[in-house]
């Protein structure tokens, strides 16, 4: 669908790909740069009742309505700050805005140096972190957009079940 331009920087080394790094809490995460649509400073968020907990609402992004995923909640971190940056990513035909604390650099991630898992806190098939990479200055947890979406879908199913149970009382 989308033609990926092959420039020397990203394809030169064996299996290195560019990733955008960002802070959530005090941990550093990254998503593949090719998935990133844009970065947005602020946006008016509309709540979506009954959505998975991590989906805190919708933002309007130039004609598109994009769900906002609070990465603090999504990654199971303490929900602390309110200063937020929208990192808008594309996955398949849908767009998602990841609410992160602060954008950092763009780095080259060598696939061979991605360790299986560096985050002990969460495990399982929906763990959105697919591996950890020792970046130039710090450890970077590599997020897989597909897994993010899978995890959200699972949370949605759980929320729907709770929703179902809720009805008797009204």
């Amino acid at each position, binding site marked *: 669908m989308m033609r990926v331009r092959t420039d020397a920087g990203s394809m030169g080394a064996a299996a290195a790909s560019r990733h955008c790094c960002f802070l959530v809490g005090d941990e550093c995460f990254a998503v593949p740069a090719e998935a990133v649509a844009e970065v947005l400073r602020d946006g008016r968020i509309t*709540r979506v009742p009954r959505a998975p907990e991590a989906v805190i609402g919708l933002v309007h992004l130039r004609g598109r309505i994009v769900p906002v995923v609070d990465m603090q909640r999504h990654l199971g971190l303490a929900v602390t700050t309110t200063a937020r940056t929208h990192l808008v990513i594309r996955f398949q035909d849908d767009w998602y805005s990841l609410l992160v604390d602060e954008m950092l650099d763009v780095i080259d991630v060598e696939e061979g140096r991605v360790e299986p898992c560096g985050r002990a806190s969460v495990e399982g098939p929906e763990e959105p972190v697919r591996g950890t990479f020792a970046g130039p200055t710090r450890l970077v947890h590599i997020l897989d957009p597909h897994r993010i979406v899978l995890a959200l879908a699972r949370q949605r199913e759980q929320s729907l079940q709770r929703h179902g149970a809720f009805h008797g009382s009204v």
Partner: protein
Amino acid sequence: MSDNREFIEEFLVEATENLDQVDRDLLALEERPEDLQPLASIFRTVHTIKGNSGFFGFSKLGALTHSGEHLLGRLRDGKVRLSGRVTGTLYSMVDAVRSILQAIEETGVEGEQDYRELSQSLVAVAVEDPTGDEPSRPTAGPRSDVAEPSSASVVEAAPPAVPVASVTAVTTPPPAALPAAVATPATAPVPAPIDAARPGPAAVDPSIRVDVGLLASILDLVGELVLARNELRSVAGGDPALEGAVHRIHAVTTALQEAAVKTRMQPIEHVFNKFPRTVRDLAVSCGREVQLVIDGADTELDRTLVERIRDPLTHLVRNAVDHGIEAPEIREAAGKPRAGRLRLRAFNESGQVTIEVQDDGAGIAVEAVRAKAVARGLVDAATAESLPDDRVLQFIFEPGFSTAAQVTSVSGRGVGMDVVKTNIEAIGGTVDVSSARGVGTTVRVRVPLTLAIVPALVVRCGAERFALPLAAVGELLSLRPEGGLQIEGLSGAPVIRLRGRLVPVVFLDALLGLPPVSATRDTGTVVLVRVDDHEFGLVVDGTHGGAESAESEAGRSGSRARLTEAASLTTIVVKPIGGLLAQLGLYGGATVLGDGGVVLILDPRGIRGASHLPPVVRDSDAPSPPPTLPAESYLVCQTVAGRRVAVPLDRVARLEKVTLDAVQQAGDRRLVRRGDAFTDVVDTDRALGLPPTGVPVADGPLNLVVLDDRCGGVGLAVRRVIDVAAAESALQPSLSAPGVSGTLAVGGLATEVLDLAAVTPAVPVPPPFQ
């Protein structure tokens, strides 16, 4: 090759469209063989395809169209007469050309299919002259290289003499025969006569091809512009020059938005155009004679909708030909013309598009449907008997419902009408059927003009706003703590009483898990939502006058103003919210309002499903159990002294909560003032003959069951309202207890039914409260 890609695509689109025209021309030709105009048009199209295929190097296509052109040329020159066999072969050629074009579109090459036998048939038909009035057959002009050497054997290889029904089979790979002779002619020089037919369409086409994605982005940009305009308007206050400019921008933007919306519209012709051919093929394979009439093909619909009604309509057309229209002999025996008439009609009607598929066939056997509905347990026999015929007919849309005695290859496997209904409803449409035995059947499909832009009602619920498609909104009702509309049965299944009907209600805040805005639910707005055949009230905006008391008269008077504040009408552009949230099933999308805020669009069908409303029988007119509560429903209350009593619900005018200090003493009456009138307050316990219990009336509000609304009415004071419930047993008359007409089971408990005539004497009752 890839350089040509763009041109090839253009060629494919154009050729495919022209083939549709060829189908229509062939049909016209069959009807009036003497008319040369359609023949010339077919010739032009085939010739153009041939020319282009030579240009792009599609040799199979070239060979096939070359043979077709040859046959058409002979037809035009009167050397061959039109027969069922000729048209059948030409239809096969059109199909073959289509499948080659499709292969090219999908794979870029012509594919493995072998069309030589078909080419031979075309040539064979061209040389054959059944009437024998053309003696010069052997020298077939410039094409003797193709036809001459093999004319005898080719005729044998051609389809049998009555091929019409089986012509489509020709496109399957036949055993190779005569490989060399036919495969080459594409490179042969084109003979002269064709030049006259070379010009393309007579008039200059005033339209251009635009990518749909581009149109969508234009619409998005216009949406952005609308938002920017609104912002501009809000900051332009004061400066007259600026305001003038803003005003013009406003007008232009509005016009631009309308124009942008129109670009998405497409005449329904794009669907209807396929039907002449479909009907012809069906008629042949089902052994019917059908005359197809199309009306209103220029009716416009949103492009996406045009695509999505194609399959349901095709199904309806198939049904009409296969099951509706009878075989010619049967029709003749019934005194009808041999050829059945199938009418497709599209027209605009109250903001929607109605499409009718009407046949003059045998009609649907209502009794068979009725029997089947009972057999399938959709309805009980007694109810079925009492249902009017047009209601019974709608059962054919139930899953797996088919009355066709004969299963044919075309239709009648018991699937279909339910799928039609599902597909139509998925795009916000409706479908219904009417039929008269022996006269015919009409299926009426109604779909919205567009899905992208819909009128909507924006409602408020607590701090949130939601949009509700107006198509689903029946009316708006204002809840009022006194006198007006109230929600009953709060502790059980909440309902509102509306013109004699009890309509279940859904609290939007509770459904969505929002903080409840009102515990007593005596304020707010009820949006009456109609979806499919169901109806429910959606309670929104309970924020105003959150206090339950009967005070704040001023707030009540402005109910209309409150309504406008709670809900506003607007036109919204529906935007998808992505699979993740769409699958919650509650939202149909989102939209951006004029103030830039994003608002979710509620899906009425989803809300109905999520709120587990009681199932409603399809027919509200039927004497079967009504959707919500049976006729014998009772309001169950607990008196101050703790007795469980019931009041026939149809006697209850309203429920009211009053504070004790609102009860005024006037003579020996206790009254509650309500506007200009006074409500008599009756101590229910006392009316039941119990001595005053001395139980202090609770500090909280007092519940009044108001019986007669005239002149303020009479209110029975009770401690609380327990439920609205159906009687579960017959009333057992009571002889002894005063004020009680009998006892029956309600809600699983024996409950005394108040004798209202006894407990509410016309004369004011003695002072009820200690």
